[in-house]
């Protein structure tokens, strides 16, 4: 029984890493722009479908397909920033962006759904072997392992970017105080564009890594988006480490509920966990404390 629990927790980390790949994309965009990009889930699905198209239909080799996917998704994300986010941000104190990013996601979804048609979701070949790896009593597929590694690698890369580069500093400064950052010559518009570009790259990587796990399913986007949100709500907004740990906590909770009761309660467990965190610490585990503004 213990081994079942351990196995569930490890799978939880793997599934959590899937959520984490979404959550980190949200986080980097949110930190720089205070916009929660509701189109992120659809961007990932574009990545998944592109990997299906390039790898299965067009028969590209892995690396070329990977580069093409990341670049295309990043471009779509940048278009989103320019066309629907920036104009919405021009109006102060409004959450117009909530609706425009949601609408952008809906538009993208409608396009890929129509392009893909009514075909069944198909398997996408993994660049890795399909044979499960066994470590002690734990069984994990190479692709799931890749998701964990990809998430860790992106987390480290983003933290290094934040702390070691000029633009990373600019992004953190903008995140904290847009106006003062602008007074020091940091154009908040360019920071936002960069954040969306990075967010798009992460969505592309996520699409490539998740393809073999999710199949070419066109209907997963909304639910994935929301799982990513739950992860951030647990971990704390704008914190990269928070996104990572929140995602793992969510994945493990779901798997434990799955193991000990029924898969039907899995989504409820996620919401329960979020509500619990909200009650104890409304800004999330790694979110800063907020003093109300008068």
């Amino acid at each position: 029984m213990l081994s079942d629990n351990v196995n569930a927790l490890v799978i939880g980390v793997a599934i959590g890493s899937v959520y984490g790949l979404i959550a980190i994309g949200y986080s980097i965009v949110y930190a720089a722009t205070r916009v929660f990009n509701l189109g992120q889930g659809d961007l990932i699905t574009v990545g998944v479908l592109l990997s299906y198209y390039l790898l299965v239909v067009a028969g590209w080799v892995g690396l070329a397909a990977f580069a093409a996917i990341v670049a295309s998704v990043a471009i779509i994300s940048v278009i989103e920033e320019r066309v629907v986010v920036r104009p919405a941000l021009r109006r102060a104190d409004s959450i117009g962006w909530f609706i425009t990013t949601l609408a952008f996601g809906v538009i993208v979804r409608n396009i890929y759904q129509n392009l893909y048609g009514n075909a069944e979701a198909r398997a996408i070949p993994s660049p890795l072997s399909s044979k499960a790896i066994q470590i002690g009593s734990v069984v994990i597929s190479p692709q799931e392992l890749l998701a964990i590694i990809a998430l860790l690698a992106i987390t480290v890369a983003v933290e290094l970017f934040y702390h070691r580069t000029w633009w990373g500093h600019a992004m953190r400064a903008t995140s904290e105080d847009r106006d003062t950052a602008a007074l020091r010559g940091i154009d908040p518009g360019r920071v936002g564009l960069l954040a969306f570009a990075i967010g798009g790259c992460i969505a592309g990587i996520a699409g490539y890594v998740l393809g073999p796990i999710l199949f070419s399913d066109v209907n997963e986007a909304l639910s994935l988006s929301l799982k990513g949100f739950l992860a951030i709500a647990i971990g704390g907004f704008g914190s990269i480490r928070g996104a990572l740990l929140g995602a793992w906590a969510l994945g493990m909770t779901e798997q434990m509920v799955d193991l000990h009761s029924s898969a039907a309660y899995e989504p409820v467990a996620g919401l329960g966990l979020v509500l619990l965190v909200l009650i104890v610490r409304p800004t999330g585990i790694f979110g800063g404390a907020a003093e109300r503004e008068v």
Partner: protein
Amino acid sequence: MSANGTLRVDDLHAGYGAIEVVHGVGLEVHPGETVCLLGRNGAGKTTTLSAIAGSCRDARGSIRLGERELRGLSAARVAGAGVAFVPEGHRIFRSLSVGENLRIGGFLRRRDPAAISADLSRMLELFPPLIGREKQVAGQLSGGEQQMVALAQALMTAPRVLILDEPSAGLGPLIVDAIYAAVRQLRDEGLALLIVEQAVERALRESDRAYVMEGGRVVLSGNTAELADDKRVAEIVLGEPTESPAG
């Protein structure tokens, strides 16, 4: 320095939304002088400063630095043109370290690392209390130290004009003295300084010329030596002659 470094504001109208607060302000700040802007709360001082800095874009009129028109530029571009604005209330990046706070001021010159590290050590000379604090998170500093970080950060943009909004607000006398010592040194090095200050005597003592605002307009201006004896200044800023028979 030539007239090239002079900040010249002409017939500036500015406000927020549909409401105009500043009605046709004109002023000049030359390199190597400190100019203060006095007036009661609500007289339009801060709005004037924000309009110059590009934070408040609802403005018309002319704001020129040398030959270059700044009106209509974004705050980031105004910073790039050589105007650094330190808003009231020491707004620094509290979650960044002190060192990061200073370095971020060099963002526009990021391709010149030598100049940046030279200026970084200059900032520590100018504000000795910051020495050894570079790794500390800025939000933990005292109010006075935070104000020094804000000033140093602005100076790291290598400005030609430095604009300070109430640099002494809420700070102790020793810190205020230290800040004004830095202001004098910067002026002597040829910087143009424009300062809004509530403490009238202090402001007049520390600056070369002054403008007095009321109701969104400049109502009085001149050399501080003359204005210091002018009863009208106190009348406008504090509302009435302060030496009037009390009680």
